């Protein structure tokens, strides 16, 4: 499971600037001191409200190769996350095979508890909850991934332009980003969906409109620091066009950030679209996890004690969100030098007996010689 069981990890075969020097917080480490600045802070996070606060100087962007992608695929957290999300995608794709039949069909009497005939029971109008849950994955995941993609494209364009061109463009775009960050998302989303023509397209549009700002902010910060790197400065002095520099020099070094923001945006879109559907915005005749919850609530499931009508859909949303955020944590672990150093430290210290002592003084650990 751990990479250190493997005697020759890939990192050692292909030296790159970030893997050659061992991450040791030595008090003399000039790299550690020079890269540390004062405390302005970047807050990254998902609009769903999970926040991760990291000092702005970390991760220090370096010229990334795609090593992290291979390391990521060995990370146990990433594997768990990918497995969960893949299962749901498969369920969505093979819905007709897994739960044959029309999810909107009235199959039996209402509010039957789970049984062999109806795996998850029936809901307040006598529809099969298992079918609804399985088929619901389709729309929910579709909205999630499409919105995630749109948000990623928009936030990348805005964030990178602001960071790269700086000056006026940056001022305007940053102001815009901050405005959208400070505006409460769900209320805006709610009145947008209430005023606009109902439909999946409207929902996706509204989600994208309210959800791009976080990603843009993170990407702007990253572009700003990448812009100052030697290889970008070199290309600029060499007279390359801005377009070419952005796409061939900066973009390849931001793949992990872009991927991370795609995952956060998808998580946000799935949770928020479920929330919207739950309060009856969007198309309530469609089957997705949010509308399942809406009907459950509308049919008084809680009063009737019919927990099986809302638990499956809610659990699905939670599991997908959990899987996606696990991938993101793993991504962070792989690409953030500080977290990587910490993980390495934990591996190194594993099983050492001074680990358990509660001391914070330098351990004295005399080896028998």
């Amino acid at each position, binding site marked *: 499971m751990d990479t250190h069981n493997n005697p020759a990890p890939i990192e050692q075969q292909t030296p790159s600037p970030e893997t050659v020097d061992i991450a*040791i*917080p*030595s*008090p003399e480490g000039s790299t550690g001191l020079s890269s540390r600045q004062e405390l302005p802070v970047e807050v990254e996070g998902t609009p769903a409200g999970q926040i991760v606060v990291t000092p702005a100087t970390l991760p220090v962007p370096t010229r990334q190769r795609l090593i992290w992608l291979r390391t990521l695929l060995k990370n146990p957290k990433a594997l768990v996350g990918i497995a969960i999300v893949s299962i749901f995608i498969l369920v969505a794709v093979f819905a007709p095979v897994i739960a044959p039949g029309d999810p909107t069909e009235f199959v039996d009497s209402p509010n039957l508890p789970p049984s062999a005939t109806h795996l998850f029971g029936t809901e307040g109008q006598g529809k099969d909850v298992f079918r609804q849950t399985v088929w619901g994955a389709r729309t929910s995941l579709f909205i999630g991934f499409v919105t995630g993609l749109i948000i990623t494209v928009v936030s990348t364009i805005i964030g990178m332009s602001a960071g790269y061109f700086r000056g006026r463009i940056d001022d305007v775009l940053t102001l815009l980003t901050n405005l959208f960050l400070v505006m409460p998302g769900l209320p805006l989303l709610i009145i947008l969906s209430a005023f606009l023509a109902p439909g999946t397209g409207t929902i996706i549009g509204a989600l994208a409109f309210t959800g791009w700002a976080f990603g843009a902010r993170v990407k702007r910060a990253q572009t700003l620091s990448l812009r100052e790197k030697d290889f970008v400065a070199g290309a600029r002095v060499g007279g390359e066009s801005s377009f070419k520099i952005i796409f061939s020099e900066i973009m390849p070094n931001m793949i992990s950030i872009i991927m991370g923001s795609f995952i956060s945006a998808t998580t946000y879109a799935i949770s928020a679209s479920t929330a919207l559907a739950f309060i009856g915005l969007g198309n309530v005749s469609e089957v997705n996890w949010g509308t399942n919850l809406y009907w459950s609530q509308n049919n008084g499931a809680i009063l009737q004690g019919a927990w099986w009508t809302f638990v499956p859909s809610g659990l699905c949303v939670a599991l997908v969100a959990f899987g996606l955020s696990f991938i993101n944590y793993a991504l962070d672990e792989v690409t953030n030098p500080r977290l990587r150093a910490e993980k*390495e430290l934990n591996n190194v*210290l594993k099983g050492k007996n*001074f680990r358990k002592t509660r001391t914070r003084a330098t*351990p004295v650990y005399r*080896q028998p010689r």
Partner: protein
Amino acid sequence: MLEVRDLRVEYLSQKGPVRAVDGVSFSIAPGEVLGLAGESGSGKSTIAHALLRVLRPPAIITGGEVYFKGKDVLALAEHELEDFRWQDISMVFQSAMNSLNPVMRIGDQIADVLVRHKKLSKRAAWQRAGELLDVVNIDKKRLDAYPHELSGGMRQRAVIAIALALEPPLMIMDEPTTALDVVVQKEIMQQIEELKEKMRFSILFITHDMSLMVEFSNRIAIMYAGEIVELAGAREVFENPLHPYTKGLINSFPPLTGPKRKMTGIPGAPPNMAEPPKGCRFHPRCTMCQPVEGERRPKLQEVLPGHWLAYHEGIPGVNVKGQAVKNLNPPGLVF
């Protein structure tokens, strides 16, 4: 007063332990200034931090002994260690900007040492903190200032005031002036000199600036790749450097006084400490040595009275004037 014997510090890493300090021995007598010189990464600061045991894992001390006035520092329990720190040895850190708490007033940062160790009341501690600022020539009103409101030189003085607060017998100064410009550097060094005369504490002075070091220290230890390669009186090191690395180091700084010399650097780069060269660690960069010395690590031995050198006996590359005496004891016991 301070005795360090065969100190070893390792940084654990996934690719195996890295020996940052590998068998270092020295001693400091009351009132003495011992200079510790060497390139960055040679383990100077690691030694300083290890003496107070403020290194954190993955750094661990893997061997050796540290005695301070008969106290076995490496065997102290947590609370004994807390009492020992600053009371017995205080430290001036490399960068005052980074070593002062940015959200605490200077007065509080001086006073909290006094409250902790001398059990003074907060008011008495502030009173004393004001006096300490006086000692380092800062206006008492600055007690209320936050670190960012002070100039670089003032911040460093404030750090020195904190280090003086308990009047410890030994003060470690880890590159105390490196971050400052030359004029301020001079002023501060002069001030430290005066304070030392007045208060008679010992100093472990760490720097890579050889000219500053020779002016300021009684004895100098030269470090290379985690080891002391030469240790002697300050003038002796300068006038009669024996180790090729010492010679290189001295030649790479312009002399402050005396005739102009041709400045030469040291070819090559410091070794990778994860896999240090076998035998004499300096041999890949050494201009004098023979390929034969890949065998064993040279030991530090007293080659002239009070002058210690790590070298291979009988190898003609190193020219030792006078006769080498038998390796009796670690150099610390000279005093």
